[in-house]
């Protein structure tokens, strides 16, 4: 069964360092999402792509976060510089299209900032 792949699973970094997360969605899924989830809470949408275009990044802290999906397939989320409050699980999800349907999530990348 096709899955959303994410890496790394775990990342420990010191504050002010740069960190990057990678996501490969299910083949053929046009819509890709990056969510941030604090332990025990619901995911918060950071950015949503339709193919290679950003359709919503209203909750992305653009002074330190950036995201790209250059060829409309895999995606990278970068944080520079990392802050203590960025410690969280970063979840990538994909869906067939932007209008409706199930989100398929990866296992997530857990970030700890020291």
């Amino acid at each position, binding site marked *: 069964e096709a899955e*959303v792949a994410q890496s790394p699973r775990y990342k420990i970094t010191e504050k002010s360092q740069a960190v990057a997360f990678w996501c490969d969605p299910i083949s053929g899924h046009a*819509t890709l999402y990056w*969510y941030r989830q604090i332990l*025990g*809470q*619901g*995911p*918060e*949408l950071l950015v*949503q792509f*339709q193919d290679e275009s950003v*359709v*919503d990044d209203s*909750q992305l802290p653009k002074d330190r976060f950036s995201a790209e999906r250059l060829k409309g397939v895999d995606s990278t989320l970068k944080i520079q510089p990392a802050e203590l409050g960025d410690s969280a699980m970063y*979840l990538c*999800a994909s*869906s067939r299209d*932007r*209008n*409706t*349907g*199930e*989100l398929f*999530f*990866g*296992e*997530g990348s857990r970030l700890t900032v020291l």
Partner: protein
Amino acid sequence: TQLLEQSPQFLSIQEGENLTVYCNSSSVFSSLQWYRQEPGEGPVLLVTVVTGGEVKKLKRLTFQFGDARKDSSLHITAAQPGDTGLYLCAGDDVNTGFQKLVFGTGTRLLVSP
């Protein structure tokens, strides 16, 4: 930003008990989804409800969408340890031209044998 409040935040019960989780908002949603998330994994879709008043059943789980499409509930009958996890509701923002899911605050369920 729309808010989806879930209650209770945490629920610890014995195997065989029944429970209900609530998902409430002041906003109207075009549809609402329920997900379950286990530790170390991403959320997995359980059900999507679209019509106000709609009721869907998935084995021992019953989902209801409020008549005004502002709230939803999840009822589990005879809970089992395998039901343990974080339950998340997610509403589709009716004000955008595309699916934009806003997740609720989550309900952590622990079912003990």
